[in-house]
């Protein structure tokens, strides 16, 4: 950047570490993925809807959900995009896809990465399956990505 511009700005960076309290729902979900390569949801006692990823409250019924249900590691793509812009917080080098995925046994949609860079090879309605990370890091990325089932 030119010296002329540098004279006009103060450069800064906010670095503030957090320890976000996971809560029982996030903890179990992420632990099961990392340790056992299993995906769990929770079921609403009233409407019986299975939420994946799990959370405490069914916002439709305003009920606390406590029944854990194992669901499939495969699902149907309900929507996708392939991005080409790059930011420092992206887990993969673009281009790659994001998907809105309805996992087998779930009643809500799951947002994750699909490892496919060609939009022509992605279709709404296609099946994808989870690929688990070999060395889990206690992250949603312990499902490393989803990949199309050929």
């Amino acid at each position, binding site marked *: 950047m030119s010296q002329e511009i540098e004279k006009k700005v103060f450069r800064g960076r906010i670095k503030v570490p957090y320890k976000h309290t996971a809560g029982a729902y996030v903890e179990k979900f992420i632990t099961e993925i990392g340790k056992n390569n299993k995906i769990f949801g929770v079921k609403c006692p009233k409407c019986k809807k299975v939420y994946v990823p799990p959370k405490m409250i069914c916002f439709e019924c305003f009920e606390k959900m406590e029944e854990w249900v194992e669901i499939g590691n495969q699902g149907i793509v309900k929507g996708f*995009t392939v991005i080409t812009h790059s930011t420092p917080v992206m887990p993969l080098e673009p281009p790659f896809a994001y998907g809105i995925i309805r996992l087998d046994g779930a009643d809500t949609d799951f947002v994750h990465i699909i490892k496919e860079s060609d939009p022509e090879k992605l279709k709404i309605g296609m099946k994808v399956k989870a690929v688990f990370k070999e060395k889990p890091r206690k992250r949603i990325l312990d499902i490393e990505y989803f990949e199309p089932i050929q």
Partner: protein
Amino acid sequence: MTEIGKVAIVGVAQTKYEEDKIDQTYSELVFEVVKKLHNDLGITNDDVGCVITSSNDFNDGRTIANMAIQDAVGSVRKAESRVSGDGAFAFMYGAMRILSESFDTVMVVSHCKCSEVSQYLVNNTIFDPYYQRHLGLDQISSAGLMANMYMNKYGVTEEQAAMVVVKNRKNALNNPYAHLREEISINDVLNSKMMAYPLKELDFPPFSDGAVAMLLAKEDVAKKMTDTPIWFKGYGNCTDAYYLGNRNMTDLIGLELAAKEAYRMAGVNNPRENLDVCEVSESFSVHELMIYEALGLCDKGEGGKFIESGETEMNGSTPVNPSGGVLSSNPTMANGLIRVAEIALQLQGKADKRQVPNAKTGLAYGMNGICSQGNCVLIFGGEN
């Protein structure tokens, strides 16, 4: 209590929106519009009862960032409060200070200098730190997902989406405050770089710097301050589910509910007939088509055909975004208050080259978060 319909906008001021206003701090941008408004109305800071601002701490790089602009809004030792979010919500907060009879006049201000920090990184922090943030999601990828699902469900084409960009950019030629003032073609949009399939670079807005201010007043004070007070007629607000997978990504349910509430309050029975002009916060081309449907300007799934009909063009029955919209100027946090300011100018008959003839009733739509998560619909009328 003061009734709705007895609160008026008496004047508005805007900066020009630009890519990088490197010679002005955001406080100086705010001072520019507040001082201009004082001068235009012939008032001093003593005539301002209360100040409501809208901004975002992540964009301004400090917490309680409203303290950075307290000199510029004249709020030292004065009632001041801030909405951490879109400026349309600040308008509502300001109007409530008058409706509750706490103050006779309220200054509402919103600013943003997108140039000071990566908007992709700021937007990534909108997402929860457990399930979404580490995926690297931002406003661009979310928009791509929404556009893909909506277009697939209703058979809306990329050409129809591009028509929104062409319309808004053409309108911006008539707006001296607009950031991007260059006419473009459908092919320019279609041939621009793929950014988040099916959306291309020109389906997205630029990032802009700028500020907007307006003075609100109760009825008798407003009538003394201006011959053209613009009356606040209706308000609706609705928030949709936070997690993208819990959202209906093909219809803007939150906006639909907010609009219904605002229409009920303002007595709008047939939005297409009753609304003379709309200014909406379209975050990407396809979004505006979805907004048409949620506002009831056309039926569900008909957004693509509706833009083709030309009804939202300047010479159509319901012009949408005569200012050029967000696709032409995008100082993010200020977008909603800019929509309100532009509607006020339209109803005052002061919109110059972008004036919609005989505009009597107008709608402003402001949005918080990603893909129409938080929705604020405001209806205004020019005669009382």
